[in-house]
């Protein structure tokens, strides 16, 4: 029998909660009785008694600081931070717009830093916390067109590992979950032949399901995973050479 109350009393911050993987994770936490504070640039797409939405741009350091200050006053603590928000433009580097490349760096790397930074400060007080940064199979598979996107995710993974060292004394873990292709809005932007090639390169050559993601997500957040930190777990059998 599946326990549907994994997250009673736990407060999550999930970035990019309006759609895609962020929305799936938010719904999973809500289903498991957790409370989610969702960050996204747009309005909420979730209506639930245990969901609070904050419309903000995670690349704006002042906005992120204010959001966490408000969270501290209202909720007093955060247990889990999920750095999921990301933007993807897949294009040959030679014709990649500098503005779009900069936008990816800002959201995918700098935004993740800002959110993890403020989340760590709050978790420090309660001496328990979990940070999960969402990475991508683009890191090990290095698909054409994903140079900047993959570079951001590599940066996020390295940031995650060093942050893990810095916050370990506070009983906070920080790990990275490298997800494979799952049918989301982001994936719809890519050419289907490219997706088919990426899927065929996986050891388990199929799309990820939401449960594939939830499995590792729950594992990393579990109380029993306090000894698991500074790790990157990829789905689908992809791995770095």
């Amino acid at each position, binding site marked *: 029998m599946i326990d549907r109350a994994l997250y009673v009393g736990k407060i999550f911050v999930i970035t990019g909660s309006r759609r895609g993987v962020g929305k799936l994770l938010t719904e999973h936490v809500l289903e498991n009785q957790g409370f989610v504070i969702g960050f996204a640039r747009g309005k909420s797409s979730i209506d639930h008694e245990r969901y609070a939405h904050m419309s903000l741009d995670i690349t704006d350091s002042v906005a992120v*600081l204010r959001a966490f*200050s408000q969270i*501290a006053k209202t909720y007093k603590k955060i247990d889990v931070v999920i750095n999921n928000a990301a933007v993807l433009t897949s294009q040959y580097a030679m014709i990649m717009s500098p503005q779009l490349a900069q936008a990816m760096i800002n959201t995918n790397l700098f935004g993740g830093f800002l959110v993890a930074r403020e989340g760590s*400060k709050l978790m*420090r007080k309660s001496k328990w916390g979990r940070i999960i940064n969402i990475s991508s199979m683009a890191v090990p598979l290095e698909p054409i067109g994903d140079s900047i996107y993959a570079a951001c995710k590599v940066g996020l993974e390295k940031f995650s590992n060093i942050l893990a060292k*810095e916050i370990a*004394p506070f009983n906070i873990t920080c790990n990275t979950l490298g997800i494979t292709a799952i049918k989301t809005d982001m994936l719809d932007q890519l050419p289907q032949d490219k997706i088919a090639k990426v899927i065929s390169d996986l050891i388990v050559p199929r799309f990820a399901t939401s449960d594939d993601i939830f499995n590792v997500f729950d594992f990393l957040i579990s109380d029993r995973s306090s000894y698991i930190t500074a790790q990157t777990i990829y789905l689908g059998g992809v791995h770095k050479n």
Partner: protein
Amino acid sequence: MLDTNKIHEIIFEALEAVNAEREEGEKIIINSETILFGDEASLDSLDLVSVLVDVESALLDVCGFSVSLTDDRAMDQEISPFSNIHNMTKYILSIV
């Protein structure tokens, strides 16, 4: 109103939080001459980070805007704001 007494109160509170984690006999003696950084400091690097985070957070609550104690301006001071509480207080008063 942010004055010397209020800033002392904020810094002392941050140091008390560090002391709360320490055993008797290892606690920091807190006064305006308490050294925060350097060979003679009673704080290790993680303690100092905790103190800075708590002080910045309290200043945000009191002032309503964020104050960074570790930006270029702080690093460029002739007398380090981290040398002792007196100098940190002076530095905070100069930037708010």
